[in-house]
């Protein structure tokens, strides 16, 4: 392919000093570690053609005089394939009611007396129709809340209607229920497994920590969650050969200030529950959590330190022969090692708001994302893109909130990101910026989201430079490929 005049030295790349080496990355998603000497040669165009290092750098698109334009364009296309697909994640907030009083309660759940915050059947149907009017081949409905099981009739309606609707549409439809499991019963579980709905439960760690973060009267939410997690897995294993897809249960863990000293116990609690991994999610000062940040929040350094200890522990567990995944690291490793998009909506350019996900509130209002919906619960509807009763999909996509989030999260337009070595793998969150710093663009050098991800990327690349750890990350990606739904 004919192209512009080649550069005499290096092709476009980003650089960061890390652990005594130079990490170079490029827009096409490749990375390479160089010694100081090799880096100086790369800069000056002095690497010897034909040497092993030259060939590897050439293959990865770092040698300006020998660029495979067509191959790199293909890599860029695959890495950013989400740009052409439309929103695939559709969050259904079937109720704001909840029977827990979690310390962080990012979902801004409301008192049980406010039954007006249940999604109606009409709003549910219109939300499903809106989802199907979007262009994505892959559709995921994720039931959130509040506690979705408090509006079980509407959850079961959406499951049946979406499955029925998809018989003629033939999309890749997946359904997932995010629940605290305390209102689960056998009938509901039968229904969910019959309709191939995966279950993702809240699990913050060992009982004392979980029940402190997620109080449920005088009862232990942890004990009930654990009982159901085991029952879901028991049923999955009992059905052989499987007549349908019964998913392994997964969990969501939220890190509060109280979680920080218990990195080992949190990992052990997930291992003891027979789970395949843990997702060490940082807390964000969005919605209700913003109001109580002083009590339960923490700084980027504290979180990254917690994450580093937990990840190193997990890597050692894997090296001892027990496969166990840290899900955030696995998703970022997918981007770094496979140059592919794992659908991690927080880490994209532009971010997943609108173009990757939509959140349907109980009243039919649609938001760019669940975080945007949480801001609305505090009285600010800046991230509302429309309503399922009065707008079309095209209206939503043309709304100022949708377009504003795309523009603000485009890393090329963010000064601190545009030349960052982690740009090919990272993303910013306009809702976070808005809540924490007062504007969609924010100020990245002072931004905790940026500091957290910079810390995590530093850690991941340091570990990826060690062959035995790199092998663990690669094994996680192999497992996820085998287990991906067909």
């Amino acid at each position: 392919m004919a192209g512009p005049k080649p550069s005499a030295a290096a092709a476009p790349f980003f650089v960061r000093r890390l652990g005594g080496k130079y990490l170079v990355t490029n827009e096409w998603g490749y990375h390479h570690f160089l010694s100081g000497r090799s880096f100086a040669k790369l800069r000056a165009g002095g690497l010897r053609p034909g040497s092993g290092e030259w060939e590897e750098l050439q293959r990865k698109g770092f040698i300006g005089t020998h660029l495979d334009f067509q191959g790199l364009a293909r890599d860029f296309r695959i890495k950013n394939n989400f740009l052409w697909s439309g929103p695939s994640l559709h969050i259904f907030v079937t109720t704001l009611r909840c029977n827990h009083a979690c310390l962080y309660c990012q979902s801004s759940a409301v008192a049980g007396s406010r039954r007006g915050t249940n999604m109606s059947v009409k709003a549910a149907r219109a939300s499903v129709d809106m989802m199907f009017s979007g262009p994505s081949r892959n559709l995921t409905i994720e039931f959130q809340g509040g506690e979705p099981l408090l509006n079980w009739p509407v959850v079961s309606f959406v499951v049946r209607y979406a499955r029925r609707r998809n018989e003629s549409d033939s999309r890749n439809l997946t359904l997932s229920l995010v629940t605290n499991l305390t209102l689960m019963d056998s009938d509901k579980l039968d229904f969910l497994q019959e309709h191939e709905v995966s279950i993702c439960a809240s699990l913050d760690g060992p009982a004392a920590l979980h029940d402190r973060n997620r109080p449920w009267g005088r009862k232990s939410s942890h004990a009930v969650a654990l009982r159901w997690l085991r029952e879901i897995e028991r049923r999955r294993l009992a059905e052989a050969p499987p007549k349908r897809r019964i998913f392994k249960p997964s969990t969501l863990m939220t890190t509060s200030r109280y979680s920080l000293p218990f990195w080992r116990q949190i990992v052990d609690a997930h291992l003891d529950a027979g789970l395949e991994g843990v997702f060490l999610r940082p807390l964000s000062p969005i919605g209700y959590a913003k109001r109580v940040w002083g009590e339960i929040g923490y700084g980027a350094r504290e979180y990254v330190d917690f994450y580093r200890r937990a990840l190193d522990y997990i890597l050692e567990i894997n090296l001892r022969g027990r496969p166990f995944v840290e899900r955030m690291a696995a998703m970022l490793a997918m981007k770094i090692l496979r140059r592919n998009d794992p659908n991690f909506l927080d880490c994209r350019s532009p971010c997943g708001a609108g173009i990757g996900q939509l959140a349907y509130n109980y009243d039919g209002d649609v938001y760019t994302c669940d975080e945007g919906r949480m801001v609305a619960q505090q009285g600010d509807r800046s991230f509302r893109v429309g309503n399922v009763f009065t707008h079309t999909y095209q209206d939503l996509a043309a709304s100022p909130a949708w377009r504003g989030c795309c523009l603000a999260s485009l890393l090329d337009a963010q000064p601190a990101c545009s030349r960052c070595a982690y740009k090919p793998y990272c993303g910013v969150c306009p809702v976070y910026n808005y809540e924490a710093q007062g504007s969609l663009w924010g100020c990245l050098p002072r931004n905790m989201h940026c500091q957290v991800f910079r810390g995590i990327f530093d850690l991941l690349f340091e570990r990826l430079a060690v062959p035995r750890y790199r092998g663990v990350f690669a094994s996680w990606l192999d497992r996820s490929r085998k287990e991906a739904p067909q």
Partner: protein
Amino acid sequence: MAKINGQSEVTIAVGLREFPMEVVRFTAYLFMDRADPLIALEGKRRARVTLRLRAAVAGKRLALEKAAFLKELEAQRFQWDVLRKNRSIQEFIVRQALQQPPAAAPAPESGNSDLELSQEEERELDRLIAEVEETLAKEAKGRAGKKKDPLGIRKTWEEAHGRA
């Protein structure tokens, strides 16, 4: 090249022939995590960058910040230069990528026309809605009749304990 002004402020003079203004601005922006930077032009060839640190620090720390700024300035000039020289290559490759057919082409959806259900599908949907509405009505009746809930598992936190 640099002057320490006081308890928490350091001024650095930068030659604009050596470091283009874009590089100076960019470097100053990166220091916003610890300082409020101010850039003042001194003629056409020089700029004066004042880093007003957000916390009061000792002179030794100020000297370190000055050194860090100068080091970052060098690094940013290099990065700016690499990207500037390669801009046409980068744009060419991205343009090629945009013109390629999608890796997994999503079938064009027919929009609202697809939302029209057949009569049979409408009947099925009506049945589902009726079923759900009946369940919701039963639940409401149960609540009105204070349906037994001996374990209290349906109660929300506020129902069980009142508002905090």
